[in-house]
């Protein structure tokens, strides 16, 4: 059974907002006692998704939640925007970082940095990506 211990929302409308998200995610990860490598992974993942939200989604928000399942705690980040959305999610997940032909959102790479990764998107309806890292 998951309990929600904390929830905060941050706007993503500029470059500095991406930096702010990185800094608060790191702060929470340190507070929860994540190992250094895991801290780096979740902050890097957050940076990637925040940037996508800004550059591809036209701006949006990041919700930071701290969850507990009794024995372990986790950080869950939800990135949401009301941008163009992604038509072919499977393809987007296959693309890397090169902006050559694909979207270059680096989603598959980000997925490898976290324990849980969910993405919801429809063309014209925006995109929502939820990542969770357990301590």
């Amino acid at each position, binding site marked *: 059974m998951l309990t929600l211990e904390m929830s905060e929302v941050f706007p993503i409308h500029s470059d500095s907002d*991406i930096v702010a998200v990185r800094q608060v995610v*790191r702060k929470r990860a340190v507070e929860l006692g994540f190992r250094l*490598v895991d801290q*780096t992974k979740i902050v890097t993942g957050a940076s990637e998704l925040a*940037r996508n939200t800004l550059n591809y989604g036209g701006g949006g928000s990041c919700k930071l939640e701290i969850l507990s399942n009794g024995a372990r705690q986790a950080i869950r980040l939800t990135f949401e925007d009301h941008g163009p959305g992604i038509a072919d999610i499977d393809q987007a997940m296959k693309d890397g970082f090169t902006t050559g032909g694909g979207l270059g959102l680096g989603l598959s790479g980000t997925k490898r*940095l976290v324990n849980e990764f969910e993405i919801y998107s429809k063309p014209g309806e925006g995109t929502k990506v939820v990542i969770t890292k357990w301590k």
Partner: protein
Amino acid sequence: MDRIPILKMGRILLVTIQVDMHDRMATMLQDDLTQRIVATRARGVLIDISSLEVVDSFIGRMIGNIAAMSSVLDAQTVVVGMRPAVAITLVELGLELPGVRTALNVESGMTIISSSLQSEESDADVGNE
């Protein structure tokens, strides 16, 4: 807005990134460096990232771009001091840094560049004989 300082050491430009840069700052650094390479006819660019706790795809791409542009301008790029946690994360992310040489610290980075410049000169000497 603050700019990242670029130091000139002989024919090598040294950039030490110590802050969590926002994207615009990174882009400015890329432009500044390109201009300085041309202005000083530098043959080497040393990027010290030993203070960086996070290197994401944007910074990664910036580094790759700097390396590519330097190469066109006949300069070598060496990235030094990457932290273990950052290296592990970049490998997991699947981000590659093509055309970028790496070294453990500024000293070894300098050695790489100067020895390659020296061997260029001796090759040239041999050619002239």
